Each structure stands twice: as C-alpha cells, then as structure tokens.
C-alpha cells in the first residue's frame, strides 16, 4: 500500500514542505483547516473522475457539473429542500443513463461528456446568471465543523479515502469495476454484466460530482456556474498523480485523494511564493508536467519505440 503510493506522498510533501518553511504558522489546527478547506471539493471530484477512469473512460464535464450543483444548492435547495434533492438525484439518474448509452452504443465518453458540459453550464447560468446565491446553512455549517484535535478536512479526506478503498478493493463490485477497466472480455466470460458495471460506475461519478458541488458551495458559500472550470483538468491530473492510468483497471483511492490535495496546495504554494496571479495557471500546468515526469522516471521500465 505504501510502496504503491510513494509518488503521491512524495508529490504532496514536495508542496507541503515549502509551504511549512515559508509559513510555519500554517502547520497549526486553524492553519491546516484553512489550507485544506478547498481540497475537500476537489478531492470528491477527483474520486468521481477516478471511478470513470477505473473503467477506462474520462468525464470531461465534471467541472461544469460541479458548477451546476453549486447553483442548484444556491437557488433551488435553499428555497425548497425537496425539489433541490429531486434535482440532484435526477442528475445521478441522467449519469446512469449516459453510462448505459456509452456502453450499449460503444460511444466515446469524451465526446458525450463534452456535449453534457454544454448542457450543465447552460442550465447553471439559467439558474444563476451571475455568481451569488444563498447556500443553505446546514451545508455551510457542515464544512465549518470544528472537530477535536484533528482539523475536519483531514478527517473528511481520510474517511473518504477509506470508504472508496473499501468500495474499490474490498468489495465484489470493486473487483468488477477494475476488471471492466483491465479486461472487459474476461469479465464477460466469467458471466458478469459489463452493462451493470457501467451504469453503476457512472452513477457513482454523478454522485461524487454532486457531493463535490455541495462541498464547494459549502466551503465558498456561493453559487457560480464557472467556479469549478479547472476541476475537469485538476481531477484528471489528480488521478494520474495518484497512480491511476488512462487505460483503466489501475486506480488508487488514497493516491487520488493525495493527488487532489497536491493540486490544491500547488495553488496555495504559488501564492505564498508571491508569484503573480498571471503566472499561476501556467505554473500549475508546469508542476503537473514535472510530477508526471518524475512518476514516469520512477516506473519506466524497458524501451518503448512507438508512442
């Protein structure tokens, strides 16, 4: 377990140590709470992306969906809890339907989700044309929870990593998920239904994206269709840093959580290093490349002549 996750641990230490040196006071209860607050929503989105990538698909609409969920939370959920819940649950159903279509008609998930991303942003800007909204108090309170001794974000993300670990590595369903990603024919031969796996996995992608949106709304107390635009890339990068692969079958729950934290902390580190906001997005892209380069050097074995 530790050996497998050596890269994500290294990459998070690589950003955490400079932060600790630049701002020693961050390493306190309140400091860590503030530092890792924004990591919670991205972690959930990364877990969502991890499920999609486990079966060899990629969801390119996660960032837009998370934005939509903040708008649903700010506009519908705050006025009518029942209606808001129905709206959120119907998103999960839509995702399950899309998963079914992707499997049955052998569609490219990238294209379908790109189409979806238009729809999500369209609905979101209809609900909430400009950033704002009124996030229900119970969501906000949940993410301001002052837990004893250990800051809430750390407990939250540890629990998340554990739950996802149990789903993916300790349940029969998890074996099927990884099997569909690794060798779908073998799963079919063994008498299982890849269709069911696709439907459930896409349901999970939708569910975790929704949780991510609620967390983002809770942490930022605002609804904004475009707030989470970067989540699509950051979630993919988080999964890859965490040791997941694009071809499916290979994932790590703890790795994904650590990868998401790294992606969040990179932004903080750049701010602490007084790097101008202009340069930040480029620096983030650069750091993704460096981490991936290191990971490649670590596990590169044998010469590959054609890529």
């Amino acid at each position: 377990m530790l050996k497998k996750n050596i890269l994500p641990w290294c990459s998070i230490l690589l950003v955490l140590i400079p932060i600790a040196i630049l701002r020693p006071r961050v390493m306190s209860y309140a400091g860590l709470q503030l530092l890792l607050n924004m990591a919670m929503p991205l972690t959930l989105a990364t877990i969502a992306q991890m499920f999609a990538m486990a079966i060899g698909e990629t969801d390119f609409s996660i960032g837009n969906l998370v934005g939509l969920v903040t708008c649903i939370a700010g506009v519908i959920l705050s006025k009518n809890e029942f209606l808001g819940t129905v709206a959120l649950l119907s998103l999960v159903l839509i995702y399950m339907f899309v998963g079914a279509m992707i499997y049955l008609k052998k569609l490219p998930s990238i294209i379908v989700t790109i189409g979806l991303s238009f729809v999500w942003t369209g609905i979101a800007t209809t609900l909430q044309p400009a950033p704002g909204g009124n996030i229900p108090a119970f969501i906000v309170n949940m993410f301001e929870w002052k837990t004893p001794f250990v800051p809430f974000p750390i407990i939250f993300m540890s629990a998340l990593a554990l739950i996802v670990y149990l789903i993916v590595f300790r349940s029969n369903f998890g074996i099927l998920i990884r099997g569909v990603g690794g060798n779908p024919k073998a799963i079919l031969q063994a008498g299982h239904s890849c269709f069911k796996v696709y439907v459930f996995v896409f349901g999970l992608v939708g569910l975790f994206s929704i949780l991510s949106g609620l967390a983002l709304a809770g942490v930022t107390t605002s609804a904004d269709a475009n707030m989470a635009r970067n989540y699509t890339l950051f979630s993919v990068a988080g999964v890859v840093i965490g040791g997941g692969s694009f071809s499916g079958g290979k994932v790590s729950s703890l790795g994904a959580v650590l990868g998401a934290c790294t992606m969040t902390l990179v932004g903080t580190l750049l701010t602490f290093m007084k790097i101008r906001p202009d340069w930040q997005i480029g620096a983030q892209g650069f750091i993704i490349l460096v981490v991936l380069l290191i990971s490649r050097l670590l596990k590169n074995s044998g010469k590959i002549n054609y890529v």
Partner: protein
Amino acid sequence: MYEQTSIMGGLLSLLKQKKVWPYIAAVVVYVAIERVSSAATATLAASMSFASFFILVGIGQMLVITTGPGNIDLSIPYTIALSGLIAMKTMNEVDSNIFIGLLAGIAAGAVIGAMNYLLIRLILMPPMIATLASSFIVRTLSIVWFRGLQIKPPRALSALVNVKIAGFPLIFIFAILVAVIMAAILSRSRYGRSIHAIGQNIKAAWLSNINVMRVKFLTYMLCGVFAAVTGVLLAGFIGGATLDMGDEYMMYSIAVVVLGGSSIAGGDSNVSGIVGASLFLYLVVNFLNIMGLGISLRNIITGLIIIAIIFAGGDSVFISKKR
C-alpha cells in the same frame, strides 16, 4: 420497378455513410432559418464565414485524432489566442506587415504543436494531459505578454477576410480549398497513409518501418499550424485578437470531427464530413440566435444536439473502439 429499387438502394447506401448526415442536417436547419428569417441568405453567408474557422481547426484536430486512441489536442483554444495575438502584434496595424505577421503566428502554432508532441513522447504522458498542461503554459504566456488587451488587425487583413465572391465568403472558399487538399493528402500521400496506419495499429505501423515519431511529431505540429492560421484569420474577422477568442474551439473542434464521421478511436478520417458538420453547427448557433435565445439556452441546445447525434450515430462508426 427495377429502376426505383436501385435508386432507393443508392439513396440508402448514401444515407448509411456517416458524412452525409451533417449535410442533411445543415439543409434542414437552413430551411428552418428561411422560415423564420427574411435575411436567410445573409445568415447563410455569415454561418459560412464562422464555419470556415471550425473547418480549419477541425481538420487539425482530425489529423491528431486519426493517429490513434487517446490522441487529442486540447491546447487548440489557447494556440488560437496566442498565435492570433503574436501575429497582430507583429503586424502592428501596418498593411505591409501582414505576411510576416502571418508567418510569426504560424511559427508560434508550430512551436506549440511541437512542444505538445515532445511532452507526449518524452514523458510518455497521455496526450489529453500533456496538451492541457501545455495549454495552461500557453495561456499564461498570452496573459503575461499581452495583458488581456485586444490587439487590432491591419485594415487590409480585415478587408481581406470579409471579401465575398459571388455571395460566398472568401475564407469559406479558402477553407474548402484546404479541405480538398487535405483530403487528397490523407488518401493519397505517404504521410496520409502513415497516420491511418498508426491510428489503426501503431505496433504494426512501427514494424512496417513507418517512422512513427516523425509522423506524429508532424501531425501535432500541423494541428498547431491549423489553429494558428485560424487565430490570425479570426482576429482579422472579429476585429482584433483577444485572450479568449479561441475558447469555444476546444469543444467545437472535437464535435465537428466526430459529427463529421471520423472515428474518435483513430485510424479513420473524414474531411468532407467536417465541412458539413461545421456548417451544420454554425447554422444551429445562428438559428438559435435568430429565435432570440440567450447564451444559456443556446449552450443547452447545442450540447443536446451533439449528444443526440452521437447517440443516433453510435455503433457502426465506433466499432473499432476497444471493448
């Protein structure tokens, strides 16, 4: 009786070709526009102008996608922006600098494309990540160098891209010409056959002595060049290069390739489908505009149309996808 069946058969086999559908859809949308608008021909001309940009960008994206599963260029939007900005800055609103500015823009696109492939090849990272990460860097460069200003094109460039010949925009004719040339290159040249071979089976292509690295390097570079040319023409057309002028091209470049009947899994390209798909998508945008729908509803409907067409297509085209 005989004749009728053969006509029907011919029609049916035509309809089975994926690339025909966007054209049919485009005609349907145009008829709808004619119903609601008195200036339908003007709308068509405007759609053709914007569709030309989709065509150019789409061809570049198609080349990359054709080289096999996972290959995709997500840096197109910021390549468009950066090369447009660099070109306009070089031109400096002076007509005689247009050619050198165009070259500068194309060079920028080629460099970005080359960088994309080097990242993919040297770090062996998935193209999706490599091109997105490099697009972050490209975007930052555009922000830092140009501070979000709009840089105006020389007057002659604006005039040139707005010229109409017999009702057809000049850039549309240019785009069609490029499409015809690219279609010929793809089906007849060594390069064209190489990228199909690589897309169908990269190992077999490598074993049969195709220089995979060189072909893919060239492909990513060409994609950057197509984006750059689009950036320069677009800047001339909309009256200035801006930071976000390429934003919508990430989605649309992929959409026109897939709607046009190319396989997203690679190995099967289709240039003429891109032309139809580009026309169709831009006619839809214009139709929704005429109907007075806001940007939100337009987004929703565009997205639903893309999904609906892909759902309807399905199976036959994507059969090569591994599963």
